[in-house]
């Protein structure tokens, strides 16, 4: 005799519910969003932020990783494009936090200089940022700005490989030689997305 603690009807009922509940899980949502990201990769960028929000975001990213004597920064890498695009996919759970955070930044800018954040001088922008650098929003923004500056370009950031050049990453190689791992012997950078290699290209499998 088989002992079953849960009836089949009950399990199937739960399973039916599971479909709905599962869709509500952030983890599962993000998996679906990732699939959309990949489909979108290579197509026209499609952000979700309103134009003023996107402008504030771009200005913020540019102060976190500025363009300066050490070369291009988050602006050239299009880190804010990465964030905007991801907010429609993998980072969708953070969409509301961005809306609130960007609004607070503009409010702080107005309080400080009577202007929107984008219209402040860089030193004033830095003062606004310094005032929020210990907040969860800033922590999230910094993390995503780094991701957008140094990620594989398939995601819309690291445009022109400026992030990889900044830290000296010699790029994605599928086979690395002894010489490629030597100290003090710089390796010629490879400027390819992982997905430019045929074995990983969309539709390869």
């Amino acid at each position: 005799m088989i002992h079953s603690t849960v009836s089949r009807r009950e399990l199937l009922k739960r399973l039916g519910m599971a479909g709905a509940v599962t869709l509500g899980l952030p983890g599962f949502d993000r998996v679906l969003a990732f699939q959309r990201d990949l489909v979108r990769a290579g197509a026209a960028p499609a952000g979700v932020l309103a134009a003023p929000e996107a402008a504030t975001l771009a200005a913020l990213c540019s102060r976190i990783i500025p363009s300066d004597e050490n070369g291009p920064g988050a602006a050239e890498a299009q880190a804010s494009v990465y964030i905007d695009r991801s907010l429609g996919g993998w980072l969708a759970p953070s969409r509301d936090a961005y809306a609130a955070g960007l609004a607070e930044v503009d409010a702080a800018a107005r309080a400080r200089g009577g202007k929107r954040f984008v219209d402040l001088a860089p030193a004033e922008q830095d003062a606004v940022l310094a005032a929020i650098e210990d907040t969860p929003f800033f922590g999230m923004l910094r993390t995503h700005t780094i991701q957008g500056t140094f990620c594989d370009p398939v995601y819309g950031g690291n445009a022109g490989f400026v992030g990889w050049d900044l830290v000296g990453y010699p790029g994605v190689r599928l086979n690395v030689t002894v010489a490629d791992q030597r100290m003090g012997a710089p390796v010629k950078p490879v400027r390819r997305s992982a997905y430019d290699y045929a074995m990983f290209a969309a539709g390869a499998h």
Partner: protein
Amino acid sequence: MPINLKPTDVVIVGMGAAGGVAALPLAQAGVKVIGLEAGTWLTTRDFAPDELRNNYRAWPHSVQKANREVPTHRPNASAPYSPRPAFHPMMNGVGGTTLHYWAQSWRLSPWDFKVVSETTRRYGASRIPAGSTVEDWPFGIEEIERYYDIVEHELGVSGKAGNIDGKIDRRGNIFEAARRREYPMPPLRWTDWHEKMAAAARKLGWNPFPGPAAINSRSYDSRPGCAYHGFCARGGCHVNAKGSTAVTTIPKAQKTGNLDIVTEAHVTQVNIDGNGRVTGVTYLKGTEEYFQPASVVLLGMYTYENVRTLLLSKSKAFPNGLANNRGQVGRHYMTHATGGGVQALFTENLNNWYGLPAQGVAVDEFAADNFDHSSVDFIGGGNLFVYSDRRPIGAASMNTFGKAPQWGSAWKAFVKQNADRWHGAYMQKTTLPYEDNYLDLDPTVKDPLGFPVCRITADFKDNERKAATYAADKMEQWYRAAGATDIVRNPLGTMGPSTHAYGGTRMGDNPASNVVNRWGITHEVPNLGILGASVMGTSGSHNPTLTVQALAWRTAEYLVKNWAVVSR
């Protein structure tokens, strides 16, 4: 009623590190095996070298039952819950976490099997920490040396032996127990960075050696050697040089015709008859429910899921969960103390952009009982390991060693200069089991099916904290000897969900304090076996997987040799 399937000899729940190994000796002996796997097969495209996806977006993006069952954690029974991670530390898929693990394939130290008797003999019984439930394993390392050897050759492990039949070779781990022969492949190559760290260790009088890895250092078993491309950590191998069970033991078992794998099978309970024997397992696939009858059931899931499935499988004979009439399921839980890391800053680029975390230099002087503990106030220790592994997002997210702000031009200048000049050591330290570190079912948090998730109640104790500090001191000394200018030490943290989770179905001869016997079969249910680190009674100070695999092979071999008795 569920759809009744044709009976099989053995059903293995989980086709990962453990189940994927156990299937082979069974199938080769003619035993019919059904392997149930919650995930799917992955393909080459899933193995793209993409740091954002692999390391920051919870790869792989296929069916991940585990992510719906992330355990909860609280440091002790009266402490508030820790924040619950969004994702499970392990993954589902044919091959399980061997698809994306670091593949460090260590044998344990001899002391790890005899903590109680050896500690008592050398230092006195008072040195066993108060509240610890540690026992000697039911056998010494000599008993499983043969199985270590088998799985090293089946999976393909690269390394350098330090002790073959008692003959010590300083090119390998001089502290290891005697092994019968050399590793099947030479170690993964060393770079200038590794040579620099090895030279520093020798200067200190230590014996550095290459760590063992289930990764081909040259072509082996029709699979090519490692490509060192730098995406091994939490990534699949695009050339199949990593010896995951998905490309080694599982395909070999399938070739016998005796292993059938069902993917996307979500096992909900182990079924039992009126005589206290298991009859098979119930699982969901799609919207259907199935019952797979089997003469023998082997649970080969991760520690949390092995324990949870037993606790969820309640019956008249086992009202508190299967094989739990003595209340031992979930007890003796441990995780490796891998927190408390040490990071170092150097004055030159290390060129760590390529390679893999298993490509590195180990020091074992301070692990287990490899040094005299007379003058310290703890037992056990830690293995020190430095390696090659760096990708751009991780590099830019580096610790700034108190030398730069967290953003702006000064940060950017610091990162531009130092992104390739830092390193973080991997140190695995002994953890012992304690009476108040355990797993059970969460009273409120449930998975989408309505079943409680696993709850972890555990924290590191004094002995673990002292061993961790000692290991960190030695690591700092090593980095400084190699020319590091700055050091940062991270806190040890607590014992939440971990990739190195042990115990919960401990192995031992005494049924009052152990769930499975010395062969991995439960004391209370004669045809139910458990595979995985949940059977391990000590953590050791090295990665668990090879030991898990050696034990899985041994349990399967026992079943084959005693088939008539176990399956009757």
